[in-house]
Every structure is written in C-alpha cells, then in structure tokens.
C-alpha cells in the first residue's frame, strides 16, 4: 500500500514539474512530425537545431525542413516511456516511438520553448525479430505484386527509393517506381509469383535481404506466357514508426525459366 501511494505521488510530482506551456509544445512538436506540419515544427525548433540520426549522420534545421515539406501526413506517433528532466530553462525529454528512442533538448528562447538538439537511436531488435518483420513486409510485397496492386506496393518503398532492374533505366523515387509498376501491370497479368528470402544481413537500421524469385507473366495484348526467375538483393530501412521499407533494390535474371 505504501509503495503504491509513493508511486502515484512520484508520477504526479514528475508531471507537475513540466510547465504547461512546455508540455503543450512537446505534444505539438511530436504531432507536427507525424502530420508533416512544417509551420508548427519550425516554430518549436531552434535555428541552430541539429538532429543526430540513428545511423550517426546529422541533419540541420534547414535539412529537416526540406524533408518535412516533402513528407506526407501520417498516423499519430505512439509515444511511450517518456521522461522529462527539468533543469531551469532547459528540459531533457526522452521517449520511445516504435523502433526508436528519441532524446530532445528543449530551451526557453525569447519566451518560446524550442528544441535545440535531438538524437534518435534505434531500438535494435534481435535477428529473429528483424527477420520476422522483413518476412511480413516481403509477404505484403508478394501479395500486392500478384494482385498487380501498384498502390499497395508503394507502401513498402521510401520516397527516395531506387529500383534497379536489368536492362531498364533506374526507377528513382517513389513516383517513378509507382509509374513503372503501373505500366508493368497495365502490360502484364501476373499469373504467379514467388519471392524466397535466403538470408538477411542486419546493418544498423538497415536490413539487406538476399533472395530469389520466380514468376509467370501473361501479356495483356496476347502472346505466350512468359516465365522468369532470378535473384535479388533488397536493402530495407527501419522507419520511425518501426516499419521496414525498401530504399534500394537490385535484381538479375537467370534468363527465363525452363
């Protein structure tokens, strides 16, 4: 009983230490990232802001603004394990989103709370967890491909992904990849397709999948069914929401199945 009372009291005290205007700013800034709300994010971010990304690279405020302007609004970010440490006019906030720890430093700047530094660190899953996640994503890819569903396929690519198929120009960026898939599905009916993962190399917030494929395609303008098989190497990247998306993909063909 005493323990429970103390715990409730401690939580209450911790929450009351965060000034209401800071609490509001913290919530607004997290929502601004999810909603691609550039104006709010800009207002709550100091001009000398630096983001340290999970792979160790950095982004300035200007660079993040470019990314945010190109982003599409997404679902609300799920925040857990939040803790805020107040140090006068400075606050250290840490919290977890799916797959990522985030640390932010807030300072009062001319009456406004702003973030001066943020660091995102991956919550690294074990190899089995990563394999499970990639298997699930790959299964969604296979199903969408077999349905000829370019829109669903595109949910598995990042905006700056690059697809490298043999004897075709590179498909660079989500728009180009979507158009290429749409053209492909307009020309071909996928009679059957399978993609088999052989192994996965985990590299920071990336996972490199090696696999093989086999497919049968029927031209929509007539003609004999086409059979193909080959190999692929796909680089997946863990996203801030914990999902995995393709950033680079290359394949080759064995020159047609028997």
């Amino acid at each position, binding site marked *: 009983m005493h323990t429970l009372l103390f715990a409730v009291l401690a939580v209450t005290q911790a929450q009351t230490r965060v000034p209401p205007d800071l609490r509001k700013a913290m919530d607004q800034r997290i929502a601004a990232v999810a909603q691609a709300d550039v104006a709010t994010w800009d207002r709550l971010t100091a001009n000398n802001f630096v983001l340290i990304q999970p792979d160790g690279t950095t982004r300035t405020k200007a660079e993040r603004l470019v990314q945010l302007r190109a982003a599409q609004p997404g679902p609300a970010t799920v925040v857990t394990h939040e803790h805020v440490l107040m140090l006068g006019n400075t606050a250290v906030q840490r919290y977890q989103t799916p797959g990522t720890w985030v640390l932010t430093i807030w300072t009062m700047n001319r009456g406004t709370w702003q973030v001066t530094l943020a660091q995102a660190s991956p919550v690294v899953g074990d190899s089995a967890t990563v394999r499970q996640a990639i298997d699930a994503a790959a299964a969604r890819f296979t199903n969408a491909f077999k349905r000829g569903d370019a829109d669903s396929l595109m949910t598995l690519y990042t905006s700056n992904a690059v697809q490298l198929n043999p004897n075709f120009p590179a498909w660079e960026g989500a728009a180009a990849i979507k158009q290429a898939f749409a053209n492909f599905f307009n020309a071909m009916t996928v009679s059957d397709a399978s993609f088999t993962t052989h192994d996965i*190399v985990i590299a*920071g917030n990336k996972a490199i999948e090696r696999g093989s494929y086999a497919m049968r395609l029927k031209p929509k303008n007539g003609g004999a069914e086409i059979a193909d098989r080959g190999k692929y190497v796909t680089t997946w990247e863990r996203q801030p929401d914990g999902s995995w998306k393709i950033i*680079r993909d290359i394949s080759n063909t064995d020159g047609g199945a028997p």
Partner: protein
Amino acid sequence: MKSILAAALVLAIPACADRGGSASAAADSAAVMSAVHDYRYAWMRGDTAAALGFISDDIRILIPGLADVNGKEAARKLFVDEMATYQIPSLTLTEQDLIVSGNHVITVGIWEETLVPKKEGAPIHAKGRFMTIWRKEGAEWRIVRYMLNDLEAPKP
C-alpha cells in the same frame, strides 16, 4: 556471363560518399573508398591473393544465370578462373551511391568495361549495375554481398 564477371568483381569507387555529417560515417566512407581502390587495382594487375583479401569468409556473389557463389573458397576459384582468362584494359564506374549504416557500407552504381581474352578472341564490352555490401571486420572492410545485373553494352 564471363564477359561481365570481371567488372562485377572490381566494384566501384564511390563519387559521393557520405550521406550525412558524422565524422565516423565520413571516415567509414573514406575507408571503403580506399579498399575499393586497392581491390580494383588488384584486379587490374591480376593479383588473386590481394583481391581475395577484400572478400569475407561468408561472401555471397550473385551473377545473372549462375548459381550463387557461396563462401571464400568458391570466390577464390571464380577469381582464379577470371584472372587467368581475361585482362581488363578499360573500366569505368558511374552513377555511384554509397550508404553508411552501422558497421556496413552499401554501394550501388554502374560499371562498364572491356575485357580482352588472354588466349584468343575479340575484346568483350559489357555494362551493368551492381550493389555491394561491405562489412567492417576488425580494422578491415570486406565484401559480404555482391549482386550485378546487365545493361545493354555499347558497341565496341
């Protein structure tokens, strides 16, 4: 197939290495560029042992129309055969992209080359894309995954 193999194994010198501002990422990019330079040079002079020094024990090489090359011993046989068969007087590497992630570096690009058979036959021109995965092993960078595909080669 043989015509594309040597260039595929020579890989790339990244033109734009670092995608971010961290010192460690820049250092890793520079180290991989150096490794690529030395590896490429080993192939140009037909030095099998030097080239194999950049190959990880668990290498997987994925070549169009061939079974996967699994492991360093299989790679050794491949390298010996290729270097005994061809010289590489011309090799260009373009449209290169490099991604640093953890203790791995991913390189993507286009290669184009001329191979000259050592015994007889006309020079062979070939072109394709590659994706190479480098892994830091102790102080060294070695290749753990390599894939190439074909692009239509220009006329000689």
